[in-house]
């Protein structure tokens, strides 16, 4: 079974991040990055399906600049066979639909049996890239999947709804699923595997290499960000100041008042 896993190296803001004065983004000093939590689950699901099938490969694909290579290397260290990174400076700040358009180029030429995306990326929280990609590729799709059983040509999947209700859904291959946390227990890479990841094949290409020109890319963009700001917490929380003992005492008082 050939499974493609689109993975994203996500941005994590530290406790003291600051907006750039022109509002175009966040000061890089306050930014860390990691492999998107959801993508660790989709990758694990892909590895398990490949191993159960006994043949095939897992290809991790990312749309991102050089820094995003870290996420791809993490995926290779955990067991993906091959990595593809697509980038061009035009993609800076690309929205979910533009990223999906680029992924469609990279995923399409692999002709996979299955594409596994995460339900969402923890920084952008679009929850949209996977299903947009399925649209571009005309692949049957199921979103928010918490269980997969495969018989080689079709899957029976569990789709998680509001309130934790589960719907069982059958879909034939090829297909695209978006994977929810908790579906499995993502593995950790061994130190040895982390070292060896750099020896695995990694291709770097541009949207143009995939046959996507600037006009097509621009046409695919779904939204334009025109302002970025700190949230207006309005009335917000009353912040309890002081030592841990002060806070504990105050919380005890509030609880007592409210519970009487």
């Amino acid at each position, binding site marked *: 079974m050939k499974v493609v896993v689109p993975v994203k190296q996500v941005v994590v803001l530290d406790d003291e991040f600051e907006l750039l004065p022109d509002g175009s983004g966040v000061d890089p000093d306050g930014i860390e990055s990691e492999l998107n939590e959801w993508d660790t689950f989709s990758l694990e699901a892909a590895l398990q399906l490949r191993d159960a099938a006994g043949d095939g490969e897992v290809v991790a694909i990312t749309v991102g600049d050089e820094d995003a290579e870290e996420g791809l290397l993490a995926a290779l260290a955990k067991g993906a066979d091959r990595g593809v990174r697509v980038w061009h400076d035009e993609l800076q700040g690309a929205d*979910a639909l533009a990223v999906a358009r680029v992924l469609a180029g990279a995923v399409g030429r692999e002709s996979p049996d299955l594409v596994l995306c995460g339900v969402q990326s923890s920084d952008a929280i679009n929850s949209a890239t996977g299903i947009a990609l399925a*649209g571009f590729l005309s692949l049957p799709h199921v979103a928010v999947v918490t269980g997969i059983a495969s018989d080689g040509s079709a899957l029976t999947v569990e789709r*998680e709804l509001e309130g934790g209700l589960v719907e069982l859904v*059958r879909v034939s291959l090829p297909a695209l699923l978006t994977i929810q946390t908790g579906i499995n227990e993502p593995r950790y890479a061994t130190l040895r595997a982390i070292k060896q990841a750099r020896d695995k094949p990694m291709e770097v290409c541009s949207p143009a290499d995939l046959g996507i020109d600037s006009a097509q890319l621009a046409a695919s963009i*779904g*939204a334009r960000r025109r302002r970025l700001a700190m949230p207006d917490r309005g009335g917000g929380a009353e912040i309890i100041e002081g030592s841990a003992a002060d*806070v504990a005492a105050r919380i005890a008082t509030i609880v007592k008042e409210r519970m009487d």
Partner: protein
Amino acid sequence: MAGILVLAEARRGELRDVSLELITAATELKARAGGELAVALIDATPERYVARLAAAGVDEVLTVRSPVAQFEPHVSARAVEGLIERLRPTLVLAAHSIDALGFVPAVAATGGRGFLSDVTALGWDDGPVAIRGAYGDKLVAEYDFPGKATTLLLLRAGTFAPAAAGDGGGGARVTEVAIELDGVARTEHGGYREVPAGDVDITKADFLLSIGRGVEEKDNIERFEELARRLGATLSVSRPLVDAGWVPGARQVGQSGKTVKPRVYLALGISGAVQHLAGMRTAETIIAVNTDPEAPIFGVAHYGAVIDMFELADELEQALD
């Protein structure tokens, strides 16, 4: 090219509440967007919901008959394509729900349309303007959709007050729209699995002590369970603790867990992701403790403290000794 199309949702014979919230959002924008407000429902028996959807401000209720009994993403996508072709709306409003997330992004992508998910506020500036969170909801961002004939927006549930449901006497036209949907489904429904009942019902508790990933290790959970007991609280958790298998699912608060409304919700080490907030934002008093001053949970809390939850636990325990 004018007007607003609202995509209402039903599941297992019930209209989902968010449908009426979408109608509120649409009526607020209608005057500026121009054109009519139409509400559509794609379902095997859409006529059941027509009366309630004909709320004040709605000009037309459109029913699309689905050939399958349950939600099916490819059927919904084709139906919405058909509706967009027919109405040519400027704006399509749907919920940021599991069903809508399963097909609306595909409709936006393939049609080269405007699109934004998890929208929390709407405006108009020569075209639609939408606000949503950015950078893990620690920031907010404003978007527009230049050059897009139709823009599809997914609105966060619980942000707009629900419109009063129609009582069957409203003036809205009702139109059954014929769209060829046979053979469009590409997935097959295989039944539902109900949520198993747990050892406790956290929705009945007056005081919840809720812990999140800040607890760090499985071995630390027992300590907070004991603290909860001594404080007279019931322990609840955020999803990662359930995903990790540390705590049974019945204790999970949030969109995919339980919706709770206790008198006091004391959240320790929970960041306040939208899906968590969905389950507790209407608690009477929310107290949040988090080491990160920018954690989104402080946006809904009544009281907050920026301290380590373990230090707080030390002090609370001492006071109880």
